[in-house]
C-alpha cells in the first residue's frame, strides 16, 4: 500500500504551501553549494541555485522562494532565478503570502527583533498597502495587527481587510494572558489563540466577538481544514471540536485498541475528510487511520529511520507521502491509488 521511492540525507528545512513542496539540504560551510529539492512534474527535482530554499509558494507560473536568510527570490517554472525582490526585507514563506481571488499579498519585515517594521505589499506590483511597527499576521482574506509594547503583546489586536480598512478592534487581555501564544486560523470562521498555559480562546473573524474559552490542552495540536468547517486533533485518537462552543463533539479513542500507537500520542498529523496519517512519538511507524471506519487501516514501519521518525513534517502531495527522521533523512513514499484517494480532498492546513 506504501512503496518506498527515495530518500535524501541532510534535509534541514521543509516547506509546503499553495501547491508546492520543497526540501533543503543546507551546506553550513559553503552556502553556495546548498542543495534544494522541489516537487515538480511528479518528481523531486534537485536544484543548486546558490542558497537553500527555506520556503516556497507557487504564484501563477512563477515560484516565489525565501533563502536561508529569509530573503525573497522569484524563480521561473524550471527553477531558474529571475530576480531578487524587496532586497531590504525578510519574509517567511509560505505563511507570509495571502492568496486572494483577484490579488496576492505579501507580508515582509525589516529591522531586527528590537526595532522592526512589517509591511503588507500587493504582490503583483509590490505596492505598499499597510505598514506597522507592531506584529502583522496574515489570514485567508484579512490581516491582523498585534500591538507590541516593550517587546510584549499589549493585548490590543486589529483586524483589517486587504484594502487596509479596519474591520474591528479588540483587547484579548480581557479573555486570556498573552504569554507565548500561537494563533490558528479556522478559515473564514474564526481564529484560536492558545497560550503557554494551554488556555485557549476563539474569536469570530466577522465581528471580533469571543466565541469560547477553553482549557483543553489538545487544542494546542489541533488544526482546521481548508474549508474551515472542521477543527480537529489526533493525539491519542480522533477529536473534532464544535466550532461554536470549543467543546469536543466527536471523540474516538484509538489508544485503547493500538497499544503501540497510544504511548504518548502524536503532536502532528495529516488529514483529509476520510483519513489521518500520523507518526506517534519515538517510533518508526506511520499510521493510517480511517475516520469513518474508526480504525487503523494500514501501519507502515520504516526500519531505516534513525533513531525515530519525526512527528512532523508529514505531508501528502500528489500521491506521495513525505516524512523525515531525527537524523534529517527525508523519506519519500508512493501510495497506492486506494490509499492516495482517501488522502485527496479537503486537507488540513499544515
Amino acid at each position: 500500500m506504501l512503496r518506498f521511492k527515495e530518500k535524501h540525507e541532510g534535509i534541514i528545512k521543509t516547506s509546503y504551501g499553495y501547491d508546492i513542496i520543497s526540501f533543503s539540504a543546507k551546506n553550513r560551510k559553503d552556502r553556495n553549494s546548498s542543495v534544494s529539492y522541489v516537487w515538480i512534474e511528479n518528481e523531486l527535482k534537485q536544484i543548486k541555485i546558490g542558497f537553500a530554499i527555506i520556503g516556497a509558494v507557487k504564484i501563477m507560473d512563477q515560484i516565489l522562494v525565501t533563502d536561508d536568510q529569509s530573503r525573497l527570490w522569484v524563480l521561473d517554472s524550471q527553477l531558474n532565478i529571475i530576480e531578487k525582490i524587496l532586497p531590504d526585507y525578510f519574509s517567511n514563506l509560505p505563511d507570509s503570502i495571502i492568496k486572494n481571488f483577484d490579488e496576492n499579498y505579501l507580508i515582509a519585515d525589516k529591522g531586527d527583533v528590537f526595532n522592526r517594521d512589517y509591511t503588507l505589499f500587493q504582490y503583483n506590483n509590490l505596492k505598499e498597502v499597510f505598514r506597522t511597527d507592531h506584529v502583522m499576521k496574515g489570514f485567508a482574506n484579512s490581516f491582523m495587527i498585534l500591538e507590541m509594547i516593550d517587546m510584549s503583546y499589549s493585548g490590543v489586536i486589529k483586524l483589517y481587510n486587504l484594502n487596509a480598512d479596519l474591520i474591528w478592534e479588540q483587547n484579548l487581555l480581557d479573555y486570556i494572558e498573552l504569554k507565548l501564544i500561537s494563533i490558528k486560523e479556522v478559515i473564514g470562521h474564526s481564529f484560536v489563540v492558545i497560550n503557554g498555559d494551554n488556555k485557549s480562546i476563539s474569536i469570530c473573524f466577522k465581528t471580533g466577538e469571543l466565541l469560547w474559552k477553553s482549557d483543553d490542552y489538545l487544542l494546542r495540536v489541533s488544526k482546521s481544514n481548508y474549508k474551515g468547517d472542521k477543527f480537529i486533533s489526533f493525539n491519542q485518537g480522533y477529536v473534532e471540536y464544535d466550532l461554536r462552543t470549543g467543546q469536543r463533539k466527536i471523540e474516538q479513542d484509538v489508544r485503547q485498541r493500538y497499544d503501540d500507537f497510544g504511548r504518548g500520542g502524536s503532536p502532528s498529523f495529516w488529514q483529509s475528510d476520510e483519513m489521518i496519517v500520523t507518526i506517534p512519538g519515538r517510533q518508526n511507524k506511520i499510521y493510517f487511520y480511517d475516520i469513518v471506519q474508526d480504525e487503523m487501516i494500514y501501519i507502515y514501519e520504516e526500519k531505516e529511520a534513525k533513531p525515530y521518525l519525526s512527528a512532523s513534517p508529514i505531508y501528502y502531495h500528489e500521491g506521495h507521502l513525505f516524512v523525515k527522521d531525527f537524523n534529517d533523512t527525508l523519506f519519500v513514499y508512493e501510495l497506492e491509488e486506494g490509499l492516495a484517494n482517501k488522502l485527496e480532498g479537503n486537507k488540513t492546513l499544515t
Partner: protein
Amino acid sequence: MFFHSFVDIALKLKTSKNGGDMSFVFDNISKTLTKLGDEPAKRLLKETGIQRTKAKGCAYAWDLIANRYDDIAVGSFDRFEQVVDGPTENILDIVFSGINLEVKNWKEARSFLPVTGSSFKQLKAYFNEKKPFAYYFNRNGGISVAEPMRGSLKNVFANDQAMEALYEVNEELFKSIPGVSRWENVRDMASNGSTPKVLDDFLEMLIKE
C-alpha cells in the same frame, strides 16, 4: 530486593520537610496510587526499585508525581520512560499525553553545550519531537539549580550554531515568543545585555523546578 531498593530510594526523598521520615514515604505511596491508579503506580515503584544508580532522579520524579501532580500534568498520565537520546544520569522521563517531562536531580547547573555533546543532542531531540516538554530540576539543599540552568539554555540560544539547529527542528515553538520570526531574533534576544521578559517567559516554560 525490590523492597530494599524501594526503601533506599524512598529515604532519599529529602526534598520534603519530612524527608527520610517513613510516614512521609508511605504517604507518598498512597498519593502516587491515588494520582496514577494501581498499574502506573506499580510501574513507577518498580522503576524506582530497578534504578538504584539513579535513585535521586527517581526520588525527585516520585516526589513530583505524589505531591505536585496537578502542577506538572498536562492531559493524562501515560508512562515513565528513559531518555530520548543522550545521557542517562539521574533522569527519568514522565510522559503525559500533553507534555513530556525530563526530571533531573543535579547537584549543580551544567552546560547544554557543546553542540556535539550529549546534553545538547538530548535537548535537540526534545525540540524535534514537536511535543511540549519541560525540564524539572530539583532544588539542591534549598538552592535553585533551575535558575542557572535557564542561564545555560540562554547560552544555547545565544550560540549561532546551536540556535539555528534548534530553530530548524521546531520553529513553531520559538515563534510563540512575541516578535520572533527567524532564529536570529532569538539569538539577538539571548545575546542582549538585559534579557527581554518574553525570553525569560520562554525559558521558564522550558525549565522548571
